[in-house]
């Protein structure tokens, strides 16, 4: 049998190179977010999440209230000592974000410092300390344990419900988005002149799927007897009594340190 002429021709199709970095980049970003969610709380700590949240709250409040360098120096030493036990990757994530925030607030505070308000220089230190601590807690406690701990700290049910479903939806939709971007990347051959349309279609499809997901979730909840009452999520049991006591002791120590170094104890005539 003889092949038709068109089938005998050499294939010389070379697709023109396309600048589709936006695709790869958004794909990577989605996957990174998913990996971060999956890895969160991979480092098991024997402290209970409730205690850790209370400690974090205390830490952020005291750092914001502090007016002098001695107390902030102590906070810095404590934070660095805690970071010392993290592994390299966790350190990079926490320090990268916290330092970026510090540099940003330094830029914001720069005019004030220029006009003579030297105390504005405390701002970058404070943002480094608070963001570093928040990220560190995020790295050590898994998301579900955090929402559980929030519930046992009497945060309204609606907030907990929203937070819980948001985190779950981010996870499910992130995987969907990953699949959609993979499909688009595989099917894109040659130059795509209508990139907005491609990106728009991915987002639109994602939105439709999200809507379908929410309806399905709600129906499933009703089928299982949902009455509008979101049961208090069970906080992960962590370390027993010591797991609760240790962070509370740490918080109490921090408060004492604050009162002493900021001069409140001396004013009350207790010490110093």
């Amino acid at each position, binding site marked *: 049998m003889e092949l038709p002429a068109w089938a005998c021709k050499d294939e010389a199709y070379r697709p023109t190179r396309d600048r589709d970095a936006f695709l790869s980049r958004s794909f990577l970003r989605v996957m990174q977010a998913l990996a971060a969610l999956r890895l969160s709380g991979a480092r098991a700590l024997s402290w209970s999440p409730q205690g850790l949240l209370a400690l974090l709250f205390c830490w952020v409040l005291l750092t914001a209230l502090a007016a*002098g*360098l*001695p107390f902030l*120096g*102590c906070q*810095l*030493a*404590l934070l*660095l*000592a805690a*970071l*010392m036990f*993290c*592994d*390299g*990757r966790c*350190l*990079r994530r926490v*320090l990268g974000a916290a330092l970026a925030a510090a540099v940003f607030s330094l830029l914001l505070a720069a005019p004030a410092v220029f006009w003579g308000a030297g105390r504005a220089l405390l701002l970058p230190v404070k943002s480094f300390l608070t963001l570093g601590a928040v990220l560190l807690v995020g790295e050590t406690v898994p998301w579900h344990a955090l929402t559980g701990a929030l519930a046992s700290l009497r945060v309204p049910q609606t907030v907990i419900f929203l937070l819980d479903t948001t985190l779950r939806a981010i996870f499910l939709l992130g995987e969907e988005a990953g699949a959609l971007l993979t499909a688009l990347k595989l099917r894109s051959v040659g130059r795509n002149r209508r990139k907005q349309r491609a990106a728009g279609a991915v987002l639109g499809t994602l939105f439709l799927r999200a809507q379908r997901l929410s309806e399905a979730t709600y129906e499933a909840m009703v089928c299982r007897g949902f009455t509008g009452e979101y049961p208090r999520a069970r906080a992960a049991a962590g370390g027993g009594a010591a797991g609760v006591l240790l962070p509370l002791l740490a918080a109490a120590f921090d408060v004492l340190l604050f009162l002493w*170094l900021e001069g409140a104890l001396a004013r009350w005539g207790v010490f110093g």
Partner: protein
Amino acid sequence: MHIPENYLSPQTCAVMGAAMLPVWLIAVSKVKKEIPRERLPLLGIGAAFSFLAMMFNLPLPGGTTGHAVGGVLLALLFGPWGACLAVSTALFVQALFFGDGGILAFGANCFNMAFALPFAGWAVARAVRRVLPEHALVAAGAGAYAGINLAALLAAIEFGVQPLLFHDAAGQALYCPYPLSVSIPAMMVGHLTLFGFAEVVFTTAVLAYLKKAAPELASGARARAPRAVYGLLALLIAATPLGLLAAGTAWGEWDAEELRETAELGAPLGYTPAGMAQGFELPALLPDYAVAGMPEALGYILSAVIGTALLVIFFKLVATLRRPHTDYGAPSAGC
């Protein structure tokens, strides 16, 4: 032994810095090759030990103080190149954050304490080990003693050549005012006796403890620091305020006012060398390991915690920059 800012002429600093540059480059490539990625955080902990050892100031009758360095300990645990990098980093943190040792004099300080000290100590320890194979601790002690004394001698020579090379028309020194005939005896008396002994005790005590508490660490088989090591670090940090008991300033580390009053030549010096009066000065974050408005001891502990944590964090971050290397040819550990 930390040479402060402006005690050495900029020319001397440049020469010492240029001498250290190839050493650092070789050290980085050697460490890359010889120390596996998993052991780098341990090197950070080693650097933290050295940092803490240098915070324990010991007093000597006559008003001067000194300290151990711990470089030989690191050389025995990680090899001399690893020790060179670790001590250099510890010195850098001290110079930048705590104002201990000058920024310009960083090259000279590294040459004495991060290059000469670990290499000489390591070589002596190996030589002694060959003669007395059963006495590892004796060899380590001998190495430590030789290492710190060589470093002190080098520092004394660097101090002592300044008045010979750099003085004004009136014969007044521009930088360090004391010649070799003063600096060498002054530095060596302390280091041949108390500070050399302190280095020997520090090196052998930590080595003996590690051999007992974490033998696989001392032999280089283990990559992660066991709890015992962190415990020892915490103990050292808590004990650092002991270093404050030593009143006085180490020889050659006086500030400008103190220097006017020193009487190393028989009579008070009476002038501030010109090069020092108009010298380079970089304000440190926590000068002299103290925080304004805080008790001295607490400031000292705080500085110890911050320095230790910075060193460990730095080496952990460096370890993440290196790609993991898997040797598929190696026999598996489980078999």
